[in-house]
């Protein structure tokens, strides 16, 4: 018996070794943001059906994790494309450059971040200022002086007497999530800027400004509910007093259970996010490794599929998945850039 086991072990090891020798990668490898994941996977699937290429393998690693894998270097064992729910940071671009990676930036569309509560409760109407006052760790002193105090607000009514008298309770993603970054940047900072003396700090003391505007309170009013947006939706149904923070596509799919909060007079809809009148929306990107474009089979056709009208157009299949298209002129310009594979050198150009 043992002989047989020994023989089969040897056989398995030999097979493994021989397969390794010819393991030149023939599929595209994609990493990155969990927000972009539903869109890249959709394109990957359609692309492989329409062509003879293998289906790209898509991992959901988060924006930051994806950048780390992507910028590791050039070669078969590194990712070809990474998705990002925010623009690449200067530090990440520097890391890429120091590892000899040339990146091509492609903006693919927008995503809206929504605040929502259970349908059984009354719908909320908030401004970004109210969101900031309700959720920031430190807020301007309510007596009007230009000082900060630890957030004293317990109920929405404390923030604005017109709001309901319920405890502030917001379920949202943890700091590792791109959704949280974008929520802080667009929602909190948007409200934070409305205080002129804080906005003035942006020029003089950028770090303090960021700390004031991006730090979420930690006294239990904001509850980190994990990266799973479905979970947040279910918790909202169970707790009608709570608000939740998640991506627009989850609101779109669960419109029977939860309703979007109207922010500054705009309800989150396809239209209001696309024309950017809904204030908390963010751009989505994919970054492509230029050196791989001619080495790994299928990258160029994959990008062509991604930037085709039937995919990212206003009536395309990505819109059906909840992505919000770029304006037509911008789409044309980006598609042209993609054909040229123009390399991103520094972040100021746009």
């Amino acid at each position: 018996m043992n002989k047989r086991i020994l023989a089969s072990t040897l056989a398995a090891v030999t097979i493994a070794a021989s397969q390794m020798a010819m393991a030149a990668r023939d599929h595209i490898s994609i990493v990155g943001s969990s927000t972009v994941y539903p869109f890249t996977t959709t394109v990957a699937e359609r692309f492989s059906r329409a062509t003879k290429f293998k289906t790209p393998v898509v991992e959901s690693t988060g924006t930051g994790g994806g950048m780390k894998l992507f910028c590791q270097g050039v070669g078969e064992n590194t990712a070809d494309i990474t998705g990002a729910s925010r623009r690449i940071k200067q530090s990440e671009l520097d890391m890429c450059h120091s590892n000899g990676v040339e990146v091509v930036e492609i903006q693919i569309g927008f995503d809206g971040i929504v605040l929502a509560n259970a349908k059984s409760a009354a719908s909320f109407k908030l401004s970004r200022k109210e969101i900031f006052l309700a959720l920031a760790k430190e807020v301007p002193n309510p007596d009007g002086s230009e000082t900060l105090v630890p957030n004293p607000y317990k109920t929405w009514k404390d923030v604005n007497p017109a709001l309901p008298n319920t405890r502030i309770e917001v379920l949202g993603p943890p700091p590792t999530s791109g959704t949280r970054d974008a929520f802080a940047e667009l929602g909190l900072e948007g409200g934070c800027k409305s205080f002129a003396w804080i906005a003035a700090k942006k020029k003089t003391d950028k770090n303090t400004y960021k700390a004031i505007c991006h730090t979420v309170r930690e006294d239990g009013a904001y509850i980190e509910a994990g990266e799973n947006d479905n979970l947040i939706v279910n918790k909202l149904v169970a707790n009608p007093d709570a608000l939740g923070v998640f991506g627009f596509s989850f609101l779109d799919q669960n419109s029977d259970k939860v309703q979007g909060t109207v922010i500054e007079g705009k309800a989150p809809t396809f239209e209001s996010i696309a024309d950017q009148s809904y204030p908390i929306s963010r751009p989505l990107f994919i970054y492509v490794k230029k050196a791989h474009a001619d080495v790994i089979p299928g990258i160029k056709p994959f990008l062509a599929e991604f930037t085709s009208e039937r995919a990212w157009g206003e009536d395309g299949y990505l819109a059906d998945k909840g992505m919000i298209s770029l304006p037509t002129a911008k789409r044309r310009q980006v598609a042209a850039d993609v054909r040229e594979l123009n390399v991103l050198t520094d972040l100021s150009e746009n």
Partner: protein
Amino acid sequence: MTDTNRNLTQEQVRQRIEQHLASRHRKEKVFRGLGIASVAFGILAVLVLFTDIISKGSGAFVQSAIQLEVTYDPLVLGIDKVDEESLTWANFTGVIREALRERFPKVQSRSEKRELYSLVSSGAPFTLRKRLQSDPELLGKTQTVWLTADDDVDTFVKSLSDSKEGFRGRTSDQKAEWIQQLIDSGELKKRFNTTFFTQGDSREPEQAGIRAALLGSFFTLLVTLVLSFPIGVAAAIYLEEYAPKNKWTDLIEVNINNLAAVPSIVFGLLGLAIFINFFELPRSAPLVGGLVLTLMTLPTIIISSRAALKAVPPSIREAALGLGASRMQTIFHHVLPLAMPGMLTGAIIGMAQALGETAPLLMIGMVAFIVDVPTGITDPATVLPVQIFLWADSPERAFVERTSAAIMVLLSFLIAMNTAAVLLRKKLERRW
């Protein structure tokens, strides 16, 4: 006097014992009751879990399909013969749209047409393509086919049984009316969902299946079993039968027991550093997954194999040695066959553990969207628990029931493996 005195004491003693007996019996009962209560609680928890999963997941085993009269019109398809080349370009979507327009001739406006076309799954053209490919004679003919409905339609149809209104979600009034018409005329039916067992993952819930994940799990476990069982058994034999008892073997023993308790994500990090970064094995491959899970299950197998070897009575070894067998002959002819049932049980339990792991696979790229069904241990693959995790995280409503259905499949495999372990032990175990 002494006599009565003794009698009295005896009487007292009996009384005391009787009193005491009642309280002892009571304690016995309470203890037994507690035991039964804890078992009952366990069973209740399992029942709640199972009913929840089954009630949520059973829907995924059926899938709505729409009956259509499809004409393989060469003009619409844009081909004049059936071959590989022309099939690739043929416009099957056009054929389906034509059939839908014929079924609902009143639909005119552009937006209405868009609604209408979205009744049928975007995978339906590939169904037609397969049909035409297998029977080229169909070109130019009309055929009645059942095409998979879109997931929004499916979710709506299934929710109709819960409430009269049903879950509309993204389904418009117009579309709901068409669906009702189709149901009334028997042209929309729920049929067994074969796709769920024959396809890989997909972003469209109605086209998603668990086959790729099942095969991924199979290849990963194959690598794990082929490596961990022989290595684990060999290590156990050496440690139990040959190794001297000293500081070093004590150290090794402590380490093995320690490794069995290390969180599995640590093995994933190790796998990333060693197998992928150093040996440059491919990411997302069952080979690497199997290697990582081997590291994870080895301690379990070594510990259970050593226990099985220890349970073989020394008299058997002594008898064999006494009759002139060598150490190796003693082990292979007598000890190992007697210890094998225990070792196999340990291996099966280790495998069942490995089947349920996701954390170590995260690091080595097996938590990924994989559509193609893997054909070997170096193809990109994912495993069943990962598939469950990915579906649970998807926004589309129809993935909720698929998540539960996949859990049902995983649970049935786990139950099968654990039952096999129990049966094997019962059947082969020998008592001395």
